[in-house]
C-alpha cells in the first residue's frame, strides 16, 4: 500500500499551490537534508518530466530548497526559501533534464560541503507524498511515513542478523525491510522501517557492530 495513513489523503497542511509540485517537492528536499544530516553548502538539483517543464509556476524550485532548509510543508517562510538559502550561503543550481525518468515528477539532488557529499533521487507520487528511490547509487524505497533506519554495511553473511538482534533486544519491531547492494561482496545498504522510534543508544549500538559502516535514523 503506497498510502497508509488517512492523513496522507486529508493532508498535508501546506502552502499552495500544488501538493505534488510544491508539498511533495518540499518533502523530498527535507528528506535529502535529513539524510545529509546538516545544511549543505552546494546543491545541484536536476529536474525531470513534469517537474522540469512546470517547476517555475508551481514553486517546485522554491519548495525543494525550502525542504533543504528543513522547512515543513506549511512553513510560511517557504515562499522566501531561495532568498533565505542565498543569505545562508547555500549555492543552488537547477538543471532541467530532457531525459525520461520512470516517474513524471522526479528530482535528483546532489548535496555537498567540505565534509562530504550525498546524492538522492526522489519522486513525488501525489497528494504531497514522496518516495526516495535512490541514495548514493543504491536503489531503495523510502516514504518517510514510518521511522526508518538506514544502515550501510559490508556485504557479508550475518550483518543483517546482527542488526535485527539489536532491534529485537530493544523490543523494536521491523515493519518492512529491504537490502540493496551495487555489487556482490562490496558495500550494501539496509533500510529498516520500524514500528517504534529508534533512539540514540540503539543507533550507537548498531554502529559499533562488526561490518557496519554507517547508521542514519530517518
Amino acid at each position, binding site marked *: *500500500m*503506497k*498510502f*497508509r*495513513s*488517512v*492523513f*496522507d*489523503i*486529508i*493532508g*498535508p*497542511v*501546506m*502552502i*499552495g*499551490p*500544488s*501538493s*505534488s*509540485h*510544491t*508539498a511533495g517537492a518540499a518533502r523530498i528536499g527535507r528528506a535529502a537534508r535529513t539524510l545529509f544530516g546538516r545544511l549543505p553548502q552546494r546543491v545541484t538539483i536536476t529536474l525531470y*518530466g*513534469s517537474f522540469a*517543464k*512546470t517547476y*517555475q*509556476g*508551481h*514553486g517546485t524550485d522554491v519548495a525543494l530548497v525550502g525542504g533543504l532548509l528543513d522547512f515543513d510543508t*506549511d512553513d*510560511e517562510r517557504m*515562499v522566501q526559501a531561495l532568498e533565505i538559502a542565498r543569505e545562508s550561503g547555500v549555492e543552488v543550481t537547477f538543471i532541467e533534464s530532457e531525459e525520461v525518468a520512470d516517474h*513524471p*515528477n522526479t528530482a535528483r539532488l546532489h548535496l555537498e560541503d567540505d565534509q562530504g557529499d550525498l546524492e538522492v533521487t526522489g519522486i513525488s*507520487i*501525489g*497528494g*504531497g507524498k514522496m518516495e526516495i528511490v535512490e541514495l548514493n547509487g543504491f536503489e531503495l524505497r523510502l516514504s518517510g511515513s514510518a521511522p526508518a533506519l538506514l544502515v550501510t554495511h559490508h556485504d557479508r553473511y550475518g550483518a543483517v542478523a546482527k542488526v535485527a538482534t539489536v532491534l529485537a533486544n530493544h523490543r523494536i519491531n521491523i515493519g518492512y525491510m529491504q537490502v540493496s547492494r551495487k555489487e556482490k561482496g562490496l558495500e550494501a545498504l539496509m533500510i529498516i522501517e520500524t*514500528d517504534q522510534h529508534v533512539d540514540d543508544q540503539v543507533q550507537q549500538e548498531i554502529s559499533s557492530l562488526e561490518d557496519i559502516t554507517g547508521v542514519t535514523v530517518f
Partner: protein
Amino acid sequence: MNFRTVAELVELAESKGMPISEIMIQKEMDTFNKSRQEVFEQMAGNLDVMEKAVRKGLNEQMKSHSGLTGGDAMKIRTYMTEAPVLLSGRDALDVVSRSMAVSEVNAAMGTVVATPTAGACGILPGCVFTAADRLDSDRETMVRALFVSGAIGYCIANNAFISGAAGGCQAEVGSATAMSAAAMVEMAGGSPSQSAEAVAIALKNMLGLVCDPVAGLVEAPCVKRNAMGGAIAMVAADMALAGVKSVIPTDEVIEAMFRIGRDMPVSLKETALGGLAATPTGRAHERRIFGKSAE
C-alpha cells in the same frame, strides 16, 4: 480493521454496525499506535485550517502571482445577495463559492489542506461547511466527515491514483468530488453503502477529465473545476440518499478511472502540452507569465 477496496470498507462498516468514519479512525489508531484523541485532534486541526481558508477566500481579495485567478468567490457571494433570482439556487452557489474560495487561496500560495491534493483542495471544505450549514451539524460530525472522505481517498489512492500528473484531473478533482459526496452522505445520516453509491455516481461524472492547466499552474481551469466538483458532489450525495444506485459497482468505477488515466496521453497529464494549456490564449498567458513557451 483493514480494508483495501470500497466494497471491503462498506462490508466492514455494515457488519460491525459502525459508520465509515469510525472504521477509518480505528484503522489509523491500529496502524500507527495512536490514541483516539491524537487521531481525532489532528483531523480537527485540519478542519480548522480549512475553515480559515474558506473565510479568507470569501472575505479577502485573492490574487495569484500570475494574475490568472482570484476574486471570483467574492464575485459569486455578491451576486447571491444582489441577483433577483438564483438559477442554480442558494445551496449550489454556497458550495461553489466556498470551493472556489479555498482554491483561490491555494493559487495565491496561502495555507490549505491537500484533499487529496492541493489542486483539488477546495471541494471537500466547500462541501463539508455547506452541508454543515444545511444539516446544522456539530463539529464532531464535520471532523468525522473528513475521516469518511479520507477512507474513500485511501481506497482510490491505493487502487488507482490521485494526482493529475499520474491520472489526469479525474484522479484529482474526480477523487475529491467522490470523497466529498461520500462524506456528506454520512453527515446527512445515510448508510455506508449509500456513501459508496455517492462515490460511484460522482466519479462516473468525472471520468476522462484531463489535466491541462494553463502555463502548468494550478489555477485555470483548476479553480473552476473545484467549483463544479463541489456542485456535482452535492447532487451525487442527494441522489445516493434518494436510493439511486450505480449500475457499475464503485470499485469498478475506480478501476475504470485507473485504466482511463493509464490510456491518457502525457500531453494531458499536467505537462501543459495539450488541452486548454495548448490553446492560443493559454499559450499567450504562458508567454506573458514566463516569457517563454514550453515546446
